[in-house]
């Protein structure tokens, strides 16, 4: 029974719950058993509260017995990236700085998911404070890619992606600042959705770069991503960047099946240039051919500006915002406090030196530098202007296209340790995803193939490949419908790693 349940979609599990074929308690027990069996190798979880999850599962079963079930997520366990607050549970951001921190309140997304009956299931590993692309920058050790345990799951939401891919949770939440949902989803062979900036409240999300951060979801299917998005989207007065859609939040799950296209789909030619792995190029081009054959109009578009300057602008803006946001970790009110400080000022220096890991320190230094007197105009202000030009370029191509198609990543999952000593090469692994955050657009990665395991005798394994679809602001319904169309005609999402 366990094996049958752990790889089912939320939509399928909801039907089993509704028809009484399975209870939420049985479901949660199945995921607990699976996690106990494989997480010693995958290391997706930072912490989990099995007793609490089972208690919530009991409550869900009670509701259902009384005819008060709350919808498709009632009784479904959902993993949380360890950067989103769940009242009474640890929130570490995979940092020594917050190793002993316990959330005193729920994030808005947590409140909404609890109200929908979903069961918070564990806090998932990540790059420290979401800074990284491999989940190696965690104070608690790296997470492994379930398809090949010697490789990274991507990042920063690597634990969230690995947990779903490995069958340790049916869906999970992550955050995406420069690709931190789409890139690990691609590397782990699952669906990763980053909504439009402002659609999902960031209240209760530990901030990295506030003008870019967005909460989103990992799932096995596009429909599951739509179900979770429907539950977490919406205006929130506690997040001043939250956007109120006057017509209300659409019923994404129902709408995505109603829209059949055909769509006008743009393919940015610069996203297929130097540095793209040939196998990924082939798989993504086959996906583009699929859309062409299904009646969509495929247009080659040119985005020279985004492909050339997005990474550079991003690493100035993101580090500037991170240096400001992480100033709050000063050893005074919460978080790590150095035991060796001689006075109040020394407390700042030593608490931060002891509490932060290497990549976080590197970014704080860079961000402080680009904001410092004499350099602000040359770096930060200029990067913000380049950001405007990047957004303008997206809006220009969207005049003739409903969405854009591209690879999610230039390469498949790389080896643990391969890029650890070279921050710049790690930064460049986000080259196709970063522009989307700068422009505040929605994006999704869906599985579109596997690399060939030519050296299978040498231990090589097939690795997942992701197709990125970039949508127009607040048009998630179209984005999901386009992704769903491809998924319905392919079975990549039904393949699972052997663990």
């Amino acid at each position, binding site marked *: 029974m366990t094996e049958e349940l752990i790889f089912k979609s939320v939509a399928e599990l909801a039907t089993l719950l509704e028809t009484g074929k399975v209870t939420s308690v049985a479901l949660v027990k199945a995921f607990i058993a699976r996690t106990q069996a494989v997480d010693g190798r995958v290391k997706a979880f930072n912490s989990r509260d099995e007793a609490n999850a089972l208690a919530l599962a009991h409550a869900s079963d009670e509701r259902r017995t009384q005819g008060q079930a709350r919808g498709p997520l009632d009784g479904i366990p959902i993993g949380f990236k360890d950067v989103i607050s769940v009242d009474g549970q640890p929130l570490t951001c995979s940092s020594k700085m917050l190793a002993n921190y316990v959330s005193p*309140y729920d994030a808005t997304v947590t409140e909404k998911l609890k109200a929908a009956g979903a069961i918070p299931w564990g806090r998932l590993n990540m790059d420290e404070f979401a800074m990284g692309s491999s989940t190696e920058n965690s104070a608690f050790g790296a997470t492994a890619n379930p398809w090949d345990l010697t490789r990274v799951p991507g990042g920063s939401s690597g634990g969230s992606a690995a947990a779903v891919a490995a069958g340790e949770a049916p869906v999970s939440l992550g955050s995406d600042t420069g690709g931190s949902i789409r890139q690990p989803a691609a590397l782990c062979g699952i669906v990763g959705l980053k909504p439009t900036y402002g659609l999902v409240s960031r209240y209760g999300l530990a901030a990295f770069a506030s003008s870019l951060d967005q909460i989103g979801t990992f799932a096995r299917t596009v429909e599951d991503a739509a179900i979770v998005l429907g539950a977490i989207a919406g205006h929130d007065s506690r997040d001043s*960047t939250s956007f109120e859609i006057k017509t209300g939040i659409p019923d994404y799950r129902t709408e995505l099946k109603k829209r059949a296209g055909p769509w006008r789909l743009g393919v940015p030619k610069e996203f297929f240039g130097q540095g793209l792995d040939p196998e990924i190029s082939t798989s993504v081009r086959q996906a583009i051919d699929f859309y062409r054959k299904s009646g969509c109009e495929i247009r080659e578009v040119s985005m020279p500006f985004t492909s050339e300057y997005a*990474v550079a602008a991003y690493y100035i803006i993101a580090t500037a915002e991170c240096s400001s946001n992480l100033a709050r970790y000063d050893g005074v009110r*919460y978080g790590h*406090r150095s035991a060796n400080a001689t006075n109040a000022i*020394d407390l700042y*220096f030593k608490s*931060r030196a002891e509490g932060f890991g290497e990549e976080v320190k590197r970014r704080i230094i*860079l961000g402080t530098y680009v904001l410092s*007197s004499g350099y602000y105009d040359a770096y930060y202000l200029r990067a913000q202007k380049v950001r405007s030009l990047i957004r303008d370029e997206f809006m220009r191509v969207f005049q003739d296209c409903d969405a854009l198609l591209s690879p999610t990543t230039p390469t498949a999952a790389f080896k643990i340790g391969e890029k650890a000593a070279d921050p710049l090469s790690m930064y460049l692994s986000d080259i196709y995803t970063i522009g989307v955050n700068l422009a505040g657009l929605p994006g999704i990665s869906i599985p579109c193939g596997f690399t060939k395991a030519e050296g299978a005798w040498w231990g090589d394994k097939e690795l997942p490949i992701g197709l990125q679809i970039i949508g127009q602001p607040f048009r998630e319904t179209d984005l999901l419908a386009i992704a769903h169309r491809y998924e319905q005609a392919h079975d990549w999402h039904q393949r699972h790693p052997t663990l």
Partner: protein
Amino acid sequence: MVRCRYPKARVLIFLPIANPAFDRLLGGLSVFIMNPSPEMNIEYVANLARLALTDAEKTRFSQQLGEILHYVEKLKQVDVTGVEPMAHASPVFNVWAADVPVDGLSVEKALQNAPSQRDNLIAIPKVME
């Protein structure tokens, strides 16, 4: 190793000289004044960030950040004349909260993560001598 140059460095050098109090405040700056370098002055920046770095970190970060700064130099090729800077991507501006009192965290919850506390207050080392 790639290093990059910062033509505006002089601005930074003259500012604190005109203001001795500011100079004292930023202790690490004196090194910068005596030894103006075309590279990022990592001690000065670390001091602004209130971050103690080891000598090994200073050496490593200087080299890595030099490479990253060299990479981002490409932004200088872009003509940004007349372009408005973009602070964020959300089409909302001047958001005000309704002037309605709401409950905050309880004292107990607000202090539950404090590293040290006394009499419902967060305790820190002495600030005044």
